[in-house]
């Protein structure tokens, strides 16, 4: 993929602190339209925090965040933040499906209530999305009746139902047992191939290498290195990155992470 002239997402010198704890110490990052960017790095390096700043679930203490020409860091009203979030899908590590709603209602509630789509249109879109994540037979099930991998695929369908410009994936396979990781990754792979702009925080190194246009390595709230996957995974001059990639790669080798 070619990097287009104006990136869809741009972070410039983003800082964020929780009390005295400085989590982000100046992050610069761009995601072009249609690009898939993976953020890797040790736990606690601020990866998830970056995602939450992009959809304004968290507000940075300093720096500029631009999404689709909108200055996210300058949004003051809830209405403005809502307008932004409608355009950005987010998928969480713990799926966070709504347990009191069926699979179909989980997917349609936001299009119906927020986008004011009519029910029939929202439901037919939801069924098409369920088809695509291979859960067409689970429309009437409740989240509690599904496996982790199935719940996560519903969560992806729920995010896609809003027809977002960008999807944020926050360690979406970290809570899954190894057998179901593959089915979730297969769905994401399909999305990326179709050109859905995606920003992923992940520990699935081989998956990140396979699907990403760009990989970003973060540690201690800073970006250590970024570049094409081949550079980060095989040609990095940074010993810390080489050690990290080798360590996780070895761990992952015993997991059937690429099942599908």
């Amino acid at each position: 993929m070619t990097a287009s002239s104006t990136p869809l997402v741009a972070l410039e010198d983003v800082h964020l602190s929780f009390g005295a704890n400085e989590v982000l110490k100046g992050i610069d990052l761009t995601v072009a339209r249609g690009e898939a960017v993976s953020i890797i790095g040790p736990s606690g390096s601020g990866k998830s925090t970056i995602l939450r700043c992009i959809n304004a679930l968290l507000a940075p203490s300093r720096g500029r965040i631009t999404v689709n020409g909108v200055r996210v860091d300058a949004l003051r009203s809830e209405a403005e933040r809502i307008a932004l979030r409608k355009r950005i899908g987010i998928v969480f590590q713990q799926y966070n499906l709504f347990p009191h709603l069926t699979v179909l209602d989980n997917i349609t509630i936001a299009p119906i209530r927020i986008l004011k789509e009519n029910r029939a249109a929202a439901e037919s879109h939801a069924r098409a999305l369920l088809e695509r994540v291979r859960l067409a037979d689970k429309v009437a099930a409740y989240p509690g009746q599904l496996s982790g991998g199935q719940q996560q695929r519903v969560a992806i369908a729920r995010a896609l139902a809003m027809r977002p410009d960008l999807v944020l994936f926050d360690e979406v396979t970290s809570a899954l047992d190894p057998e179901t990781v593959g089915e979730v990754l297969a769905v994401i792979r399909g999305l990326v191939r179709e050109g859905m702009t995606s920003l992923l925080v992940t520990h699935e190194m081989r998956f990140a290498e396979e699907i990403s246009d760009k990989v970003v390595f973060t540690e201690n709230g800073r970006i250590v290195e970024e570049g094409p996957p081949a550079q980060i995974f095989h040609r990095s001059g940074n010993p810390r990155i080489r050690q990290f990639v080798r360590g996780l790669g070895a761990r992952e080798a015993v997991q059937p992470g690429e099942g599908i």
Partner: protein
Amino acid sequence: MTASALPSRLSAAPLLLAVTACGAVALWLALDPSLGRLLLEWLPYLARGFAMNILISVLAMALGTLAGIVLGAMELAPVRLVRAAAIAYVQVFRNAPHLVLIFATTYIFPFEIVAFGHYVPFPDWVKAVIGLAIPASAHTAEITRGALQSIPTPQWDAAKGLGFSRIEALRFIILPQCLRRALPPWMNLYASICMGTALASLVGVHELLHAATDASTAVSRTDFTVLTYVTVLFAFFLFCYPVSRLTQRLERRLAR
């Protein structure tokens, strides 16, 4: 299997008690037919009284629940002043005896209201509704607050991430999940408010206890007085017991 057998075994005790009581009353009535005839004569009057209890309890609970849900959400509002006001209201009225509140509303509100030149009566039973709606709202607020706090924050994040505002998330995502947790204590509250309606007799509202007093004064027979008050007890039991059974059934059905 044993889990489903347990509730039915528990329910056997009150049912047995009720059947025994019925049997005793039937025996008593058989021994003195005049007593039965008297009761039958007064039964419609007592029933009208009890209808008032049900009316007061349903209205007080409806009003109290609506206000209580709003107050419960206010107790967790991001604005400090809103939070403080709601907490103050809840703490004051949760700790006030129902009878005191009924007396207060009876004497604070006028007996009629002037609206557009018309005199609209403000009957005592409406004042009793308000008097009971106040503690009902304070208790519902606490039930709501507890249920809201039991919903994990990632549910809020998921709703916000989809573009729900705080109020919309509350309305469509969070409150519906509270229902299951809030239902049992809410039904208990209803039973308590329902029993509290008998207090309205003390401010002259024509409800069951008031009707029973009328009946026993009019007939002026000790055995009839006893039977009348047993009937009152029985009426409350017959109404409140199914409510508690229904609660248990709903709880089981909602516990998916």
